[in-house]
C-alpha cells in the first residue's frame, strides 16, 4: 500500500514538472478586497489583459516550444501577515517563473524577504512606498531579485513639493495616515521640502488612522495655521473623509499628495469635494496614443466598466507583464534566476502602454536603488481630479506624452 502511494506521489510530481515546462507560471498578488482593492484588482486585471494578448498570439517562443502564461492569483487583503504567508507559499514553489504585484508597502516589507531568499524574481507594482526598495540597500544586499515598476514615493514626494512651490505657496499643512505607507510618505515629503530649499513652511503635521471619519481637528489646525495647500499621504476612504471635512469647515485649498488620490474610492466618496485634487500619475485614462486607446477600450470591454478603478495600477500591471515576457524571451527559459538576469539587461525596447521601456533595469547596485526601479521623473505626470475622472493637471505633460509617442514611432 505504501509503495503504491509513493509511486502515485512520484508520478504526480513528474506530471506537474512536465506540465510546468509547457507554461510560464507567474503569480499575481495584491489586495483584491478591502480599502486597497481598487488598486489590487485593477493591477490584476491590467496584467491579465496583457497575458491574454500574449497567450492569444500563441505565447512566447522558448527553444522550440511556444509557452503560454499560467497565472496564480493570491489575495493578500492588504494585510502584512497575509502577505508574508503568501510569499512563503510562493517561495516554496520550484517551478514559479516570477511574481508580479503587491499594492501595500507593509506587505512588501513583510513578504519580499522570503522571495529574495529563494531568488524568485518579482516585479513590485504598484506599491510605491520608498521602504520596499530601500530595505535592500540598507541591508546592503549584493544580489537582488526584486524589481519595481511604480513611481516610487521619492519621485512622487519631489513632485508634490515641486507643485506646491510652483504654485507660489509658502505655508502648507501635512497629513498622513498611521500605516507604513503614510509614515514613509511623510518622511519623504519632509526630506523633499528640505532638499528644495525650505521654501515651504509646514504649519502643522498631523496623522489619522485607517477608518477615521471625522478629520475636523486636524483640518482646523491646518486652517488656523493659514495653510495654502494640504500635502497628504494616505489611502482612498480616509482621503475622501479629509476632502469632505475640508469642504465642511470651508478650507478651500488644494489637496496635493501621493498617487492614491486617484483611487476610485477617493473620487466616488469625495464627489465634487475632490475636484482640483492633484497627484502624480504614471497613466491617465485618456486615449492620447493608439496604444493607450487600445488598452483602455480592452479594459472597459473585458471588465464591463466605464472607468478603470485605478488606471495607474492597471497600466503598470499591463506593462509589468510585457517587460517580464520580454525577459523570458531573452532568457530563453522559465527559470526565475535566468529571467532576473535578463531583466537587468533587456536588449530590446518593450512597447508598453505607459511608455516604451528602454533598459528599465540594470544590475543591482546597493548604493543606488534606482538600478532596480523602472520609473524616472519624466515618465510621471501630474494628474488632477475633475468631475469623477483623473485628467492631466498640466497640459504641458499631455503634449509631451503625445510627442514622445509619435517620435518613438518615427524612429521605427
Amino acid at each position, binding site marked *: 500500500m505504501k509503495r503504491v502511494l509513493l509511486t502515485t506521489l512520484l508520478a504526480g510530481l513528474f506530471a506537474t514538472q512536465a506540465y510546468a515546462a509547457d507554461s510560464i507560471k507567474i503569480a499575481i498578488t495584491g489586495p483584491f*478586497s478591502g480599502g486597497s482593492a481598487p488598486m489590487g484588482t485593477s493591477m490584476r486585471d491590467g496584467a491579465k489583459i496583457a497575458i491574454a494578448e500574449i497567450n492569444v498570439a500563441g505565447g512566447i517562443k522558448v527553444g522550440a516550444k511556444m509557452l503560454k502564461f499560467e497565472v496564480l492569483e493570491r489575495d493578500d487583503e492588504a494585510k502584512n501577515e497575509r502577505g508574508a504567508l503568501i510569499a512563503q507559499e510562493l517561495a516554496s514553489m520550484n517551478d514559479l517563473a516570477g511574481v508580479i504585484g503587491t499594492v501595500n508597502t507593509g506587505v512588501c516589507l513583510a513578504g519580499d524577504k522570503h522571495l529574495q531568499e529563494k531568488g524568485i524574481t518579482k516585479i513590485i507594482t504598484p506599491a510605491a512606498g520608498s521602504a520596499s526598495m530601500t530595505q535592500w540597500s540598507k541591508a546592503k544586499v549584493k544580489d537582488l531579485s526584486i524589481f519595481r515598476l511604480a513611481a516610487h514615493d521619492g519621485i512622487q514626494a519631489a513632485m508634490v513639493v515641486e507643485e506646491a512651490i510652483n504654485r507660489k505657496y509658502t505655508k502648507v499643512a501635512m497629513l498622513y495616515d498611521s500605516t507604513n505607507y503614510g509614515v514613509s510618505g511623510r518622511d519623504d515629503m519632509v526630506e523633499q521640502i528640505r532638499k528644495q530649499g525650505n521654501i515651504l513652511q509646514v504649519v502643522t503635521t498631523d*496623522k489619522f488612522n485607517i477608518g477615521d*471619519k471625522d478629520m*475636523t481637528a486636524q483640518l482646523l489646525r491646518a486652517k488656523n495655521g493659514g495653510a495654502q495647500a494640504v500635502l497628504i499621504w494616505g489611502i482612498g476612504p480616509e482621503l475622501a473623509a479629509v476632502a469632505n471635512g475640508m469642504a465642511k469647515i470651508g478650507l478651500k485649498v488644494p489637496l496635493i499628495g501621493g498617487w492614491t488620490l486617484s483611487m476610485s474610492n477617493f473620487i466616488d466618496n469625495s464627489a465634487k469635494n475632490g475636484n482640483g485634487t492633484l497627484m502624480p500619475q504614471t497613466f491617465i485614462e485618456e486615449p492620447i496614443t493608439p496604444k493607450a486607446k487600445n488598452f483602455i477600450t480592452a479594459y472597459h470591454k473585458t471588465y464591463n466598466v466605464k472607468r478603470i478603478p485605478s488606471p495607474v495600477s492597471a497600466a503598470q500591471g499591463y506593462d509589468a507583464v510585457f517587460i517580464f515576457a520580454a525577459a523570458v524571451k531573452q532568457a530563453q527559459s522559465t527559470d526565475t534566476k535566468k529571467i532576473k538576469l535578463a531583466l537587468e539587461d533587456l536588449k530590446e525596447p518593450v512597447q508598453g502602454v505607459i511608455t516604451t521601456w528602454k533598459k528599465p533595469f540594470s544590475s543591482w547596485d546597493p548604493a543606488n536603488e534606482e538600478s532596480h526601479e523602472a520609473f524616472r521623473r519624466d515618465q510621471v505626470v501630474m494628474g488632477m481630479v475633475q468631475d469623477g475622472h483623473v485628467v492631466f493637471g498640466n497640459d504641458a505633460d499631455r503634449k509631451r506624452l503625445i510627442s514622445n509617442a509619435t517620435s518613438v514611432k518615427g524612429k521605427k
Partner: protein
Amino acid sequence: MNQALIQLLVSGALMGLVYALVAYGFQLTYATSKSINFGQGELVMLSAFFSLTLTNLGLPYYLMIPGGLLFGVVAGLFVERAGVRLALEQKSEGWILMTIILGLFGVSAAENIWGRDDRPFPTPIPTEPMQFFGISITPLEISVALGVFMIMVIIELFKRKTLLGKAFAAVSADRDAAELMGISATRTIMLSYGLSGLVAALAGILVSPITTVGPTMASALVLKAFSVAVVAGLESGFGVVIVGLFLGSLESLTSFYVGSGWREAPGLVLLILALAVRPTGIFGKAVIRKV
C-alpha cells in the same frame, strides 16, 4: 470663545450622538433582559447595506427609510430568537458568545453579498455646509442630530406612557413577578430586541452618508458606543446621550489640543475611571441584591 473651539465641540458632539444612538440600542435590551447584543454594530452595518440596496433598486428616500427600519426590526428579532432566548431561559450567559458569533456571521455575509469595499450612500439631504455665527454645520449632520433625538424621545415616551412600555420596567425589575402579573416576559424581551434593531437600522441610515458603507463601518463605532453605555450606566436612556455628547466633544478637543494620535485616549480613560470609581455608571442605580 474662539470659533475653532466651538466648531470642534459641535463636530465632536455630532459624532457623540451617533455613539449614543448605538449605545441606546445596548441599553434597550439590557433594560428588559439584562442581556446585550454584542453584534449591535453589525446590525447597523447590515441595515445600512440593505437600505443601500433598496436605494439602488430605485426606491425613493422616504420609502427606503421604513424598509431599512423594518429590516432592522426583523434582524433584531432574529438575534433574540437565535442567540438570546434559549440562553436566558436556561439562565446561562451563552448569549454573550452567541451574539458575537451572529455579528461575525453578519460581517461574512455582508462581505459575500455586498463585497468588502466602502461605498458612498446617496442621500437627498444637502451636504453643503451652512454657516451659523462662523460655525459650519451641514444639513446632513443636523438630520443625524434630529433623528437621534426624535427616535429616543418616541421610545422613551412609549416606555413611560403606554401599558406595554411599562411592561418593560416590570420585566426589568423582576422577571418572575412580572410573569405572575400576566406579563409575557418573552414577548417583552422580543419587543425590546425589535426596538433595538430599529435603533440600529436608524443609526445605519443616518450615519452612512457621512461614514460610507462597508462591512467594517461599525467596528470602531461599536467600541465607543460600548464605552458610552458602560460609563453612562446601562439603566439610563438619556444618560447615554449626555455621556455620548461629552465623549464625542472630548475626543475632538483632545485630537486638536493634545495631538491627533491621542484621539482614542479619553474614551479609554473615561471607561477605566468609570469602572474603578462607579461601576454601575454615572447614571446607573446601585441595586442591592437580597439573598
